[in-house]
Structures are given as C-alpha cells and as structure tokens.
C-alpha cells in the first residue's frame, strides 16, 4: 500500500473504528492498535475540557462529554496546533442547544479569552503616557488582543460567577445583542460591558480613530463642554485599562 493511502486510511480509522483495520493496514503486530484511537479521542476531549472549563461546569460533565464526543465524531482537527481545535465547538453547541443561547455564548467567551491570552503583544497607552502624546494628531487604536463580542445572553455574568466559584445568576436573554469588550492587559485577559458611547466609537477604533474625530463625535452628541469632558474621561479610563495601543510620540 502506498504511504499516502495508508495514512489516509489510518486517519479514517481513527475517526471510525472497524474490525478489518489491522488486515487493511497490513499489520504484522496489531496488538496495540487501540492505543492510537484512545490517544486521538482522549487528547481532543482533554483539549475541549481544558479550554472551556466553565462551559463544562455550566453543562455538567455528562452533557459536556456527550456534546464533545459528538463534536469529535463530526469535526476532525486539521490545524497544526491542538489549541485551535475548540474554535468550532461554540457554534456546534449553538446547534445542539438552540433554546439555550447562553451555552454557545459561554463557550464562545471562553474560546475568545483563550485566543486573547496568546494574541500579539503591543505597547499599551498608560496613564503615565497621556502627557507625552500629540493629541491633535493621535490615532486611537485598540490593542491587538481586543475584540468586541456581541452577546444576547448574560454569559459574561455567568462566566464571572463560575470563575469566582459563586452560584451563577439565572439566564437572561435580550432581543438585541450587547457587545462585550475583551482584551489583554499585560498578561491578564479581561472583559467588560460597554456603555452607549463606547458601543458607538469602539468599533471604529479597531481600524483606528483620530482623537480629534472622537472629540468631534462626542461634541456633536453632547455639546462642547460635556463632549470634551466625556472624551477626556474615556481616554483616562482606556489608558488605565490598557485598552489602546500607545500612539507614536
């Protein structure tokens, strides 16, 4: 058998055991064939549980493992890193629990936090940097780890309670999604809700928004005095949180 055919066949067998495998692969000693299948499924199951520990807590071990086993059956890994395997699991949970949107959203929040943990580094704007920036020319840009995750449910509050070892709140679902801001400050991943002003301006800061444009937007919404004060307040908050890339001096 050509090596390419053997490898394709072996991969098919890892996914779907059958009694003729040893004969088909031409094994002189098939004694330990089962070790490979146990390794394959075991590593994928362990990966999902490790990356999504609070989703596991929320669903319970039995339901989580049943969902994971079905996902493993239907979604073989293709990426070079095992860390990437859970990427499709939140959407799968969405189809498995269509009436419980918090399940998929909790998993998506955990998945995004794991991505955030290893996102590219960047020098963040800190409070101590504010005086050295030319604000007439400065462009506000979110750090590379930052993203906005729209949620219909209170999955963020559920995650926080589970992470703290507290009783989670009851599920609450809204008709409109509310974006959650996720980012990494130094080596710690954080997330929080956004107010109405941030919901309007933060999406523009993914590509970059001049500070002067932010001020103009807020002045238009709130009037000159309150708009400028609001811009200064937001800037101070974002600098304290490490949400923005430090602009070039």
């Amino acid at each position, binding site marked *: *058998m050509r*090596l*390419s055919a053997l490898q394709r066949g072996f991969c098919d067998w890892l*996914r779907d055991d059958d009694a003729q495998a040893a004969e088909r692969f031409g094994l002189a000693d098939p004694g330990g064939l089962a070790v490979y299948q146990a*390794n394959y499924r075991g590593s994928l199951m362990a990966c999902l549980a490790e990356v999504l520990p609070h989703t596991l807590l929320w669903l319970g071990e039995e339901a989580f493992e049943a969902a994971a086993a079905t996902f493993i059956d239907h979604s073989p*890994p293709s990426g*070079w890193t095992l860390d990437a395997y859970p990427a499709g699991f939140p959407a799968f949970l969405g189809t498995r629990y269509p009436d419980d949107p918090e399940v998929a959203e909790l998993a998506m929040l955990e998945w995004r936090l794991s991505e955030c943990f*290893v*996102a590219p580094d960047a020098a963040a704007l800190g409070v101590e940097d504010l005086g050295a920036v030319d604000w007439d020319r400065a462009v506000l840009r979110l750090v590379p*780890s930052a993203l906005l995750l729209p949620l219909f449910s209170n999955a963020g509050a559920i995650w926080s309670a589970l992470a703290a070892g507290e009783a989670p709140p009851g599920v609450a679902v809204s008709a409109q999604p509310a974006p959650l801001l996720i980012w990494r400050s130094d080596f710690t991943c954080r997330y929080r809700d956004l107010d109405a002003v941030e919901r309007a301006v933060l999406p523009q800061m993914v590509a970059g928004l001049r500070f002067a444009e932010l001020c103009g937007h807020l002045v238009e919404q709130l009037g000159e005095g309150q708009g400028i004060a609001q811009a200064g307040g937001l800037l101070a908050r974002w600098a304290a949180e490490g949400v923005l890339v430090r602009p070039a001096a």
Partner: protein
Amino acid sequence: MTREPLPPPAAYARFGLGLRKPHYAEVLAGGAPLDFLEVISENFMVPGGRPRDILRRARALHPVALHGVSMSLGSAGGLDPAYLARLKALVDEIEPVFVSDHLCWTRAGLGHDGFQSHDLLPLPYTAEALDVVCANLAHAQEVLGRRMLIENPSSYIAFAESDMSEAEFLSEITRRTGCDLLLDVNNIFVSARNHGWDALAYLDGLPLDRVRQIHLAGHTARAIGERAMLVDTHDQPVPDGVWALFARAMARIAAAGAAPWVMIERDDNIPPLADLLDELAMARAVAGQGSTLCA
C-alpha cells in the same frame, strides 16, 4: 537579553528538564541546578502573551532546546509551510541549542481537507517511507537553516511491509540528511517490550556518535485487549529498567565519542520540581557510572 554563550553541543554531557507549567515560577526564579531546559515548540509558537514571555525569560537563564510534536516528518504529503514558518520565527528568536521532532507522522493532507491526529503515529519502515522522511527532514533543515535531531518513537503496532529495522531506518536518515539523534531511552524500552525487540541490539544498530540529546521518562503498563503492553505516558518516575538501559546506552555512546545532553521528560502527573531534580541527580550519577561501564 543576556544569554549564556553556548558551548559546542558535544563538548560535555549536560543535564536538564522539560519545562512544564507547574514549575515555571520556581525555574524562572533562577538557581535550579539545571544545565538546560527543553520546551514543547508548539506551546510557544503563538503570536504573543505569557507563553512567549516565559520562554524569553527561560532562555535568559538557560540554553533551551525546542522539541516538536507536530512537524509530521513522515507525512507523504509533505510539511505544512505555515507550521514551518512559525517554527522558524521561534528558532530565530530563541536560538535554541537543539531543534527536534519525532520519527512519526501526525497528519494526512493539509488545510481544511487535512486531518491532524495530534498523536505520534507509526510508519512502515520501507524505502518509500524513508524517501518521504528524508525529503521532509531535508526541507525542514533547509528552511530552519540548521541541523535537526530526530527522536526514536514508542510504538504499539508493526507493519508487515517493513523491510528495515527501526535502527536501520534511523541510521539511514542520519546518513542521508545529516541530522543527529535524540535518543529516548524510555521509547526504546517500551517498543522493545511491546514488540519483543532486543534493546541492546537496537542501540548497537544506531550511529551512537550522532546522539546529541537523551530523553528519560516513565511509562504505564496497560492491558490492550488481551495483550499486556507498555504505553509511553510520561506520567511516572523513570523506572529501574529504563535506568539500567540508560547506563548501558551511556557506556556505548561515550565509547562512540559523543556526550549527549540528558533530560527528564515528564508531561503528566507532574511532581514537585524537587522530585524531578532528584531524578536528574540520579541521571548524572548513572551517566557517570555508565561512562565507566564496559559498553
């Protein structure tokens, strides 16, 4: 970053550990009696964040070896260029003392149509497989701009169409690609027990002057169907049988003129650092005895 200048790898034997999460703080505090650290390459082939910071700090303290599990040197479809690019970036930054991966395959196909098993799968030892491994290894060495080490695997099955022994297969790979060897003594022990090989004959079949690094680890006995087998679990202390084989291996390797870097490889059921340092002290002692043993 201040780094210790690296000695020529074969100048003298050194002793280290695989760096794992439970020991990050203790090891990075400095002062542990370690000559080098080995890390799993894929755990650090990420854009940024804490993993890269940990590795930079580890590298500032000790020479680092990068040990891979996903290159898939035995894939008939060739290597994954995205994987190689990530590994090269890490190699260029960290300047590791060794870069290694396994004699195995993990993947068939590439991209969305590909299948990545995330396990070290066995190869038939045939002329076709030898051509595949040598071509892939030569390509990896060319991209990385350096010689690699290839590690002997643990295996649980054997292919009827194999027309070379594993030692012959590895020897031919070193001859054709110029790569060196990472000898996993536990893997020899496990495979020899599972297949009824003679472990010493296996050692004698290898070009031992090419051994640059040694792994020591533990295994688990399991009933697989009706068979009692050893499984390479890395979740136990190094057992007596592996220590004994290590002593015989070191005697032969010293006689061949090589001085490999030796380490304890523990991946699961990880004990306190002090326990692994005790095992490493044992490795130093056994290596010292081994080099005076009759090979």
